[in-house]
């Protein structure tokens, strides 16, 4: 993370509010278009149906008023039929009465003949270059002097239909429009009230000092609290990492200064003294100091690593026995104190915990190193599964450190140890950090006539096995 120190300027973007409003508007517009299309279709359908009935009614009216006179059909054209057709106020009318062979009895010869046959046919055709709708009704005559079918065709142009369709659509759209406006207004208020916690959070964040990594108060609706919680978690981690780094740097500054000064002093002494024996003695001291500095560096780096890992590696199921076995098998103690006896105390049941294997190894290694350095042989490394708790421990036969030291152990660093150029305190602080990182704890104390350091974790075996 780069901390520029200055507040980052917020680039101007369209607000969530305007985005959501735009979205709602687009949704409403799309809905409106769909409704408009549907309304137009419905209007056309309704207009078509009602005016088609008119046409059929008029045609039937004309058919009813036709009689056979002297062997020929005679149409007594009823005014009522045309009154019906006149309901389509401004539409041209066409009508024709034809015999089966197409002979025009009366009406306009421009009226089209239906392409389909049937007792009642509705069809579209042109009427003097205008689109028009026609109905043809058939009536069969079986009189002594006339037998056959007479077709009555009635049609009109589409002005009234279109006007009705448009009127229906317009009415529907007006309703939709009013509903849309109301919805928009409602949406505006709902969205605004929904957005308020977010705005609140944003303003809180903006007001915040960039170095302030304390958690934010969690309030507001679930989505916002989730965001705040996540942010708090992130800030906590950041805080820890920054703290670890700060610790590392101050540890390094504090702890390394003394041993390095001592090494320089020894080296100067060696350089100044001409006598071979003194030189040899000085070199041995120098070597011892250097080795001690090396282990101190190891400890510090491993601690930094452990803290880094606990924050960055997701915990996995780990069998504590593997850890104990691994540490003992490394046989580091052969280098550190070749005469010490190290026993491994594990049994056949696996002891599973949720943790990071490398961090655990590092911690146990530290525990073992401490025991080898300060404790009394024999040293035992063991694992115990006790119900909900899983423990990994290192015990020696000695009395352990004095109560005053015990009180200081576990802290990050310890002046006394550091001044001696050793790193016992640091080692235990790693153990403590690892234990806490995986929801466990470190216990130090007398146990079965010896001194024991224990890391206890919640066991995962018992519950997860089910």
């Amino acid at each position, binding site marked *: 993370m780069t901390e520029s120190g200055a507040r980052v300027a917020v680039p101007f973007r369209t607000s969530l509010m305007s985005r959501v409003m735009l979205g709602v508007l687009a949704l409403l517009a799309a809905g409106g278009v769909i409704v408009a299309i549907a309304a137009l279709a419905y209007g056309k359908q309704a207009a078509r149906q009602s005016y088609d009935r008119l046409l059929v009614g008029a045609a039937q009216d004309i058919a009813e008023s036709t009689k056979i006179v002297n062997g020929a059909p*005679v*149409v*007594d*054209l*009823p*005014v009522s039929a*045309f*009154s019906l*057709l*006149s309901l389509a*106020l*401004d539409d*041209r*009318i*066409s009508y024709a*009465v034809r015999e089966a062979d197409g002979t025009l*009895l*009366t*009406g*306009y010869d*421009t009226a089209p003949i239906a392409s389909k046959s049937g007792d009642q046919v509705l069809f579209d055709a042109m009427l*003097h*270059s*205008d689109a028009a709708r026609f109905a043809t009704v058939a009536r069969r005559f079986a009189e002594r002097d006339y037998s056959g079918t007479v077709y009555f065709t009635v049609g009109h142009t589409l002005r009234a239909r279109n006007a009705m369709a448009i009127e229906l659509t317009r009415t529907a759209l007006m309703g939709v429009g009013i509903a849309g406006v109301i919805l928009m207004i409602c949406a505006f208020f709902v969205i605004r009230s929904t957005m308020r916690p977010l705005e609140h959070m944003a303003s809180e964040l903006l007001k915040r000092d960039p170095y302030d990594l304390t958690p934010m108060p969690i309030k507001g609706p679930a989505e916002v609290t989730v965001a705040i919680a996540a942010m708090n978690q992130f800030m906590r981690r950041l805080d820890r990492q920054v703290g670890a780094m700060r610790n590392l740097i101050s540890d390094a500054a504090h702890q390394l200064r003394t041993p390095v000064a001592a090494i320089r002093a020894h080296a100067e002494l060696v350089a100044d003294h001409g006598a071979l024996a003194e030189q040899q003695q000085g070199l041995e001291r120098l070597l011892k100091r250097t080795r001690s500095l090396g282990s101190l560096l190891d400890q510090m780096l491993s601690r930094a690593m452990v803290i880094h890992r606990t924050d960055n590696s997701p915990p996995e199921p780990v069998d504590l026995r593997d850890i104990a076995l691994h540490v003992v098998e490394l046989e580091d103690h052969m280098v550190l104190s070749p005469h010490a006896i190290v026993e491994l105390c594990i049994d056949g049941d696996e002891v599973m915990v949720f943790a990071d294997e490398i961090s655990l190894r590092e911690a146990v290694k530290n525990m073992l190193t401490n025991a080898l350095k300060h404790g009394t042989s024999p040293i035992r490394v063991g694992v115990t599964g006790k119900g909900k708790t899983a423990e990994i421990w290192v015990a020696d036969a000695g009395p352990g450190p004095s109560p005053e030291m015990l009180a200081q152990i576990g802290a990050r660093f310890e002046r006394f140890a550091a001044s001696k150029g050793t790193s016992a305190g640091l080692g235990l602080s790693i153990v403590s950090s690892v234990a806490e990182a995986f929801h466990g704890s470190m216990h130090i104390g007398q146990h079965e006539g010896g001194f024991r350091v224990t890391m206890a974790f919640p066991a995962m075996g018992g519950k997860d096995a089910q």
Partner: protein
Amino acid sequence: MRNSLLWAALQVVLLLPTALASQEEIERITAPGSQVDITLVLRSTTDLDVLRPIIEAFVLQNPDIAVTYEQWGSNALFENSLAACAGKVPSASAVFSSGVHQMIDLVNRACASAYRSEQTTALPAARRWRDELWGITKEPAVMIYNTDLVPAKDVPKSRFALLDLMRRPTSMYRGKIATYNIEASGLGYLFAFMDSLEASTFGALLEGFARTDAVATCCSWEIINRVSRGDYLIAYNVLGSYVDSATFDNIGVIHPQDYTLFLSRAYMIPKDGPEKQAAARLLDFMLSTRGQNLLKARNLFYAETDGATLPESAERGISIEPTLLVAGDKHRRKQFIDLWRSAFAKRDKAR
């Protein structure tokens, strides 16, 4: 008949000077000393003398327009307009006819062009159709009688009174009652047809006409003149506007109290006519306040000023609407004319 008229219409094109058979009168009216750019051809069934003041006022107001006024019989004008619509003869700029059912038919056959203006849209719905046909006038169909010869107690105030008059066993009115010959006159046919739709009295009227040897004859002017002369005592369904614009002392006018038909002469701008703009200007002029006042002055627009008021319910305007197409139907017309003829044929047989 239609063919012969078409032929006559063709002759108008081919042999112009000799082909005035169906066209009764023709006159060009211009504003005095004006520069004429546009010639508007107006074909009308109205007597020129009746319309002359209106046309003259129009050309005075529009000096760039000259009006060629052609006076036609209504049936001939219908045939001519049909032929013009089919592109067979030159179209008029405007057609103004009392044969409203024929004009409706023309519009229905898509022979007219649409026009909208403040004046036309102000017309009531019953006086316009599709913005292609407009009713300009309001003229009653009246009964007239000779005031010298018809006793006051006999004057028929309604059709029922006329029926009673005709039913008298020995009547002085035998052969003295006249009405339009509906076969010759489009207007006469329209009036008779509307009568037949309006009331059941029509059958009785026909029967009465047959009983009294009524005369079916032609033309408003002839009927009015002969009533004035005493050749006929009573005439039925005469255009009231003609009677009043004539100056006859001895003619009484009756607006029948049972119902009085009102005619609106229809004005149409043919789709292929020349100078449609000018035709529209003439239309707007006739519908303007000034035009309507002039029409009133010529009795072409009925106004209840002359004491003899008519009950509101007795006013029956002939609406300009497609129901009038029924009047033009071939079968219906034939049946109607057959009925008419059978009423008037009895007298011929009797003679």
